[in-house]
């Protein structure tokens, strides 16, 4: 139940509150989200989409998701720590 939270803390920083991190998932794939510090957005690796966080409000409307281009996906995957719990 703490999948997104686990991923976020693996990245050594949590920019959205724990209570949100505990329950939020990608609205498309229902898989955990990853916080991208560079863009300040929530990334769904499963769906290959990123969602912005505006004024502290995560904007998780499916049609507003931004498709990640391949380069972004590759570099994020290379640098991310694999989360063993789930």
């Amino acid at each position, binding site marked *: 139940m703490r999948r997104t939270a686990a991923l976020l803390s693996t990245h050594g920083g949590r920019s959205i509150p724990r*209570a949100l991190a505990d329950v*939020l998932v990608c609205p498309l794939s229902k898989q955990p989200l990853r916080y991208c510090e560079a863009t300040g957005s929530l990334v769904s690796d499963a769906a290959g989409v990123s969602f912005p966080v*505006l004024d502290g409000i995560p904007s998780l409307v499916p049609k507003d998701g931004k498709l990640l281009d391949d380069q972004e996906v590759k570099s994020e995957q290379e640098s991310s720590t694999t989360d063993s719990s789930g």
Partner: protein
Amino acid sequence: MAMQAARRLASWSLQRRLLLPSQVQAPSIPTAAAAAAFLHSHATSFGYKQVREEDKSKLVGNVFSSVASSYDLMNDLTSVGLHRLWKDRLISKLNPFPGMKHLDVSGGTGDVAFRVLERIKSVGHRAMQGTLTETEEDTHIYVCDINPNMLNVGKKRAAERGYSKEHCLSWVQGDAEALSFEDGSMDGYTIAFGIRNVTHIEKALSEAYRVLKRGGRFLCLELSHVDVPVFKEIYDVYSFSVIPAIGELVAGDRQSYQYLVESIRRFPNQEKFAQMIQEAGFQRVEYENLVGGVVAIHSGLKL
């Protein structure tokens, strides 16, 4: 007192209907076809206008962006303040408890969320005599709305009421048809005056089912159908003549309120909607009419 009279009015013609368990229904082909036709018609109707399915959510979005700032005032005016009692009744039925995780969908301006919060705090204080226990700290209320303007109004209202220090209130922009919450993460789900604006009702219902824990409760407060003779006629005149006029005067937007009024008529009636909730998997589905059916509260349990 005026409140007593208002309460009596709000619960006048209180009717409770318990839908029979699923052993009674044997879906026949005509029924399934009728259901599909109905769902399609809801998805492609914008009030009395016909629209493309893809366009509906954008049109609804425009309505709510337009009405967001005067939304609360308009609610007070058009319902003569009754919406407050209706929401009180909704919370009463929800019966919030400290430590609960609650999701309020299409709750942009925060009315329902604030009530849940206040109720939990008062329950908690009565039980624990003011000391914050671990359980109370687990309480969390998520407000989800597809419209950022409505959420911003809600956040502002929260600040005005001194809730900005509250760590148990979260605002998320999301789609009722594709929620961004984990399976089985919520104890309660409410949607007040929001479901009729959703393009695919059945998707919203199945998402509600998905995010609720076992034992979780679904509650929907929505404008519904009035069958009471004479009162029905008065209500129709009020809806189609008075409400859009108030919309024009107060919000400077007659069309949005025209849409709102039409969308009520297009929405399924109490029985039909109860059936849809049951089809989404909920059990012990029932509804309560308020003010002769002007408003109905539907509830269900995920077992």
